[in-house]
């Protein structure tokens, strides 16, 4: 009998394709919206986390200046680091994988007729280690090159493409302002970052070379430190802060004139923010699902009124209350489940389109898909119940007389 009731409901749905599709439209949009929002949001969260971690795992960035001033304020009052500061960190702080003292500025790079404005970074081979760079060709600096300040460089994928096109750059010489510099290696591309900066637009030159022949001083503008796996970056941060306060003779009650940024902390903050956004968008979409449910109730109520005579006939012929109730309830649930399914398909399609447009990975959250489906079925039950009850309680005599 239950199966018969389902069949009756299905037959009624098929008999009224137009009304049925209008009924489920709200659910379709609601489910599709939830799935699109959450999927794209999850992708964005993953992307942010991935981009930050591509800068280097367990990375800490040490810069002069107070943190709240931001990078622009650093050079105003606070003294720059010296190479000795980096050496002290390497010597005195435990649990480090590498320390890379850095300096640099932007400069014009020229090769033949090509020229390209790029960023020069002066550092050591440790830079490659702490920032997760991999060579796609050539070699690292030798100790001799680093010590002597040799005119050699390792170039990023962007400048390689701009200056050399398809040619092999290794062994060729480019000009960076007055410095003629031999390319000894190239970096594997990390890809465009969504923060708007191109990580691959980089020329790495030995620290001493940059200090002497490009910026003309002995300053270190920042120190990148990478902690060993399993070592707490928080502890490392504290140790570096204690050491630098000592070395820079900062009094007990004075604020730091440098700052140590913990990338993992930033990852947490940023992914937390995007996750919150995802939740909010998902909630807004869930409201539209609720509105879809009200739409179902609305059309089911109209449908009950419109079909009063049919209900009267069924009751007169011997349908029991619960059978009429079930018929309409099943109609509502079948409709809303069907709407849910279409919504899921549309949602995944829209999420895939959105993810590729925003260049974020497509991460299907099975949990959300199941929740959206179950929720749409529940919407059918909840919002279908009232109209179904109304139908079941009709007086057969009145119903038969209904025009």
């Amino acid at each position, binding site marked *: 009998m239950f199966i*018969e009731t389902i069949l*009756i409901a299905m037959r009624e749905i098929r008999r009224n394709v137009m009304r049925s599709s209008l009924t489920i439209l709200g659910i379709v949009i609601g489910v599709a919206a939830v799935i699109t929002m959450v999927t794209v949001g999850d992708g964005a969260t993953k992307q942010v986390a991935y981009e930050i971690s591509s800068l280097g795992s367990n990375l800490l960035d040490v810069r002069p200046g107070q943190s709240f001033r931001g990078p622009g304020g650093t050079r105003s009052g606070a003294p720059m680091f010296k190479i000795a500061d980096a050496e002290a960190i390497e010597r005195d702080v435990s649990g480090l994988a590498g320390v890379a003292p850095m300096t640099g500025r932007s400069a014009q790079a020229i090769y033949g007729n090509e020229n390209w404005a790029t960023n020069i970074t002066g550092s050591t081979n440790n830079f490659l280690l702490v920032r997760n760079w991999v060579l796609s060709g050539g070699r690292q600096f030798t100790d001799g090159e680093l010590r002597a300040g040799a005119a050699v460089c390792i170039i990023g994928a962007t400048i390689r493409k701009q200056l050399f096109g398809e040619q092999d750059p290794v062994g060729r010489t480019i000009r960076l302002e007055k410095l003629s510099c031999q390319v000894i290696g190239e970096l594997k591309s990390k890809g465009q970052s969504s923060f708007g900066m191109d990580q691959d637009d980089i020329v790495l030159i030995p620290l001493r070379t940059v200090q002497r022949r490009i910026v003309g001083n002995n300053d270190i503008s920042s120190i990148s430190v990478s902690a060993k796996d399993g070592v707490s970056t928080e502890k490392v941060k504290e140790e570096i802060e204690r050491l630098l306060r000592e070395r820079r003779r900062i009094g007990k009650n004075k604020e730091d004139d440098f700052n140590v940024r913990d990338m993992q902390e930033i990852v947490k903050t940023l992914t937390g923010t995007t996750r919150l956004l995802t939740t909010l968008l998902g909630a807004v979409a869930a409201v539209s699902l609720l509105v879809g449910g009200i739409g179902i109730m609305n059309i089911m109520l109209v449908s009950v009124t419109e079909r009063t005579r049919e209900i009267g006939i069924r009751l*007169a012929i*011997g*349908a029991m209350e619960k059978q009429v109730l079930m018929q309409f309830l099943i109609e509502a649930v079948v409709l809303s489940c069907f709407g849910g399914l279409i919504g899921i398909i549309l949602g995944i399609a829209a999420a895939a389109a959105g993810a590729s447009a925003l260049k974020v990975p497509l991460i299907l959250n099975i949990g959300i898909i199941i929740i959206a489906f179950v929720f749409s079925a529940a919407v059918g039950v909840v919002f279908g119940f009232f109209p179904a009850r109304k139908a079941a309680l009709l007086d*057969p005599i009145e119903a*038969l007389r209904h025009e």
Partner: protein
Amino acid sequence: MITTPSGTGNMYPVIELNNVTRVYGTGTAAVNALQGIDLRIDHGDFVAVMGPSGSGKSTCMNILGCLDTPSSGTYRFKGVEVGNLSRDQRALLRRHYLGFVFQGFNLLNRTSALENVELPLIYRGTPATERREMARKALAAVGLNGWESHTPAELSGGQQQRVAIARAIVASPEVLFADEPTGNLDSARSREIMELMTDFNRDQGITIVMVTHDAVMAAYARRIVRFMDGIIDKEEQNGG
């Protein structure tokens, strides 16, 4: 499931009304549609109910058809006091013992003749193949061979009423109630319907209670019950 008193055979008449009244509304707006009806209908009878408009014929039919219950008095169907049954129990009683034909046909729109006739069997839980076969036979019995897949909109009034009769008799009911079954049909179509009803009464022993305004139609019945202002004015046996 309603079970009539077992082992009673024909001890009880199919229908037995004792001093049945029906009051619509309350207070000053109250309408006494039935004012004390006594009526007994035995198995296999064919009764025509006549009387002027507003005399309480439909009200009485609704009570007999277990769609409504008396305000006072008793209605026994095969010995079972219908006034004591719940809504669902009365639905089961209708499902298993009664068939209905209405003036306005009351078929499901956009539904084939066959599916319309299958409807009572669906609620009886008859398996699909058997159901289809029974519906086909019922349609054949009312002369609608070949019209199975037509919807009511594609059928004439006479054909629609024949579908309704097929639906009413498909489950072999004990009693067939027909409230002005020919009210919307011309006289030729009306006579065809009456022939069909007479056949079912005679060949299958289905008890028939039919409301009609038309003396020609009433002449097909064995007995005529005349209503007047909510009481039975006259009962007469048809000659012959």
